[in-house]
């Protein structure tokens, strides 16, 4: 049996080799299909690990509290607009009652551009917050200083700029001590944050690198409201994030009269959320690739049917000299299997090649996991068998007498 199988494999290669161009064209569908599936999955995986790294780069042991209730990992659109359910009072209560908190700061979104002379930075994310934010976000400075509790208490009009924002307004000019205009008021630049290590998110949207911070008290006067759109919490490093999350939730619930109109969000939750979004994306892309695999499979079936017809006489001879139906079936099945496996292998090699090129050229790394490799091989085998069976059965069932007379 083993020798027969080995002969069949050799024979399949001989047969494929003697029709090189045709075999290559036949494999093309599978090559493209496997390449598409693996590459798209790899890009999805790359994005996921990139985003995960980004989120984790925000600082360790970070918990965010968002207004509005978020149900099972879905964003509640009302949490982003309208009146926030969070208040500065929540910040005070958290600071007082939750022992595991290291630092906590509210964030007020001040929708306004920053102007300096005729220059402005429209992408700046202007946030009113307390000095704790610099502890929470583990801020390192490029120059100047951060504001302190004294600045907060005295409602000082001072601001700390993100590096990209400072660059876009001041260029190489020294910004410290200069005054920018926010909502018509002059505000003194006292510090510039360190240049971000990672390049900004390639997927657009505001990044915390573009944040500028001014004292919460000052922000309250600028906007004449007290809207806390987010509370950021840093917990002590020896505390389990999940325990801290539960504690924060309990304290806030009590402060909100048992109404859960907020969401306590850990980094892990955020990673999970991004994960679910990316999984949907990946599934879609994977399905697209799977369609081309299907087309590839039909191509293989087509060529195998042609091959069976072409080799009708050969089948007749083989049967006359002692091949059973099973022998013929296996022979053709192995041929289609090898055809699609070769295609899969070439497709996989292409995926690795393209992933490497992307990594080198684009500062982004598609990740081909061993699961994808197994998936690609499994897909190829599946395609080879499924679309090889019909032609193989046809070959096996040929009447040797008619097959021998076939011209």
């Amino acid at each position: 049996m083993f020798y027969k199988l080995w002969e069949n494999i050799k024979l399949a290669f001989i047969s494929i080799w003697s029709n090189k161009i045709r075999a290559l064209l036949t494999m093309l569908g599978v090559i493209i299909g496997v390449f598409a599936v693996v590459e798209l999955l790899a890009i999805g995986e790359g994005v996921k690990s990139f985003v995960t790294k980004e989120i984790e780069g925000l600082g360790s042991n970070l918990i965010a509290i968002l207004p509005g209730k978020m149900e099972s990992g879905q964003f509640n659109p009302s949490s982003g607009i309208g009146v926030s359910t969070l208040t500065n009072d929540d910040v005070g209560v958290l600071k007082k009652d939750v022992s595991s908190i290291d630092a906590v700061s509210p964030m007020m979104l001040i929708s306004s551009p920053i102007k300096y002379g005729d220059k402005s930075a429209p992408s700046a994310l202007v946030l009113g917050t307390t000095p704790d934010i610099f502890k929470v976000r583990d801020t390192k400075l490029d120059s100047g200083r951060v504001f302190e509790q004294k600045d907060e208490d005295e409602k000082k009009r001072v601001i700390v700029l993100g590096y990209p924002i400072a660059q876009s307004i001041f260029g190489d000019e020294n910004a410290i001590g200069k005054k920018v205009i926010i909502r018509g008021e002059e505000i003194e630049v006292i510090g510039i944050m360190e240049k971000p290590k990672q390049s900004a998110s390639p997927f657009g949207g505001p990044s915390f690198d573009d944040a500028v911070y001014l004292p919460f008290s000052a922000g309250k006067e600028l906007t004449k409201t007290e809207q806390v759109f987010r509370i950021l919490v840093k917990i002590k490093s020896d505390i389990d994030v999940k325990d801290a999350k539960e504690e924060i939730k309990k304290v806030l619930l009590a402060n909100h009269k048992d109404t859960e109109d907020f969401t306590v969000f850990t980094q892990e939750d955020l990673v999970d959320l991004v994960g679910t979004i990316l999984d949907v994306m990946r599934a879609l892309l994977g399905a697209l690739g799977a369609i081309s695999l299907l087309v590839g499979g039909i191509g293989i079936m087509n060529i195998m049917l042609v091959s069976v017809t072409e080799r009708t006489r050969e089948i007749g001879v083989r049967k006359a000299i002692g091949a059973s139906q099973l022998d013929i079936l296996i022979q053709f099945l192995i041929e289609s299997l090898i055809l699609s496996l070769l295609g899969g292998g070439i497709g996989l090699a292409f995926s690795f090649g393209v992933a490497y090129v992307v990594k080198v050229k684009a500062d982004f790394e598609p990740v081909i996991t061993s699961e994808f490799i197994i998936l690609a091989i499994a897909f190829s085998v599946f395609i080879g068998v499924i679309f090889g069976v019909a032609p193989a059965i046809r070959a096996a069932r040929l009447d040797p007498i008619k097959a021998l007379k076939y011209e």
Partner: protein
Amino acid sequence: MENIISVKNLVKTFQIGDQELHALNGVSFDVRDGEFTAIMGPSGSGKSTMLNLLGCLDQPTSGSYRFDNEEVKELNSGQLVKIRRHKIGFIFQDFNLLPRLSALKNVELPLIYQGYRPKARQSKAREMLNAVGLERRINHKPTQLSGGEKQRVAIARALVSEPRIILADEPTGNLDSKTGEEILKLLTQIHKERKVTIVMITHDSHIAKSAERIIYLKDGKIHEKGILEVLHLK
């Protein structure tokens, strides 16, 4: 000597449209072990049908065909495959070598289906190609061989599995007369040296006469007069 083939009242009917065609209409004969028999007849006489039945490629409509003491009609397709694999060697008019394989590989083919190991297979196939005088051509593809050489490869392939019987279907039909003579000589020589039973189908009385015995078919029946005519020519 015992009979390897025993045919009694063999009938094979084909349905063509509304009409029944009796390709064989009650044929009876025996072939003894080691005999060289020619089945002769004009085209349409049923000799191809006879060959298919003798070769276990087809089953008769009625009548009995005993091959090597087995009633073929009672065998299932798997058993028929085993008989073809181990006990029958085919030689065809148009050689029917597999074009992509070398002469050696072509001869190895029946042994692959018998489950031989590669080494044993190769040495046997080589030996057989030597026996038909093709020791220098073993790695040639069929397209690189002349008609006579191709038929020699086919004969080697038929012999390599040491069958009980060789069925040759117009083995010289596609060859010029000189080469045909050579092939016929080879068959006769093999028959004598190896004591192999040969049943050869031919429409050519000249070819048929090189056999030890002639069965003449006409319209699906054995035609005794036909044999006499052939022998008269002798």
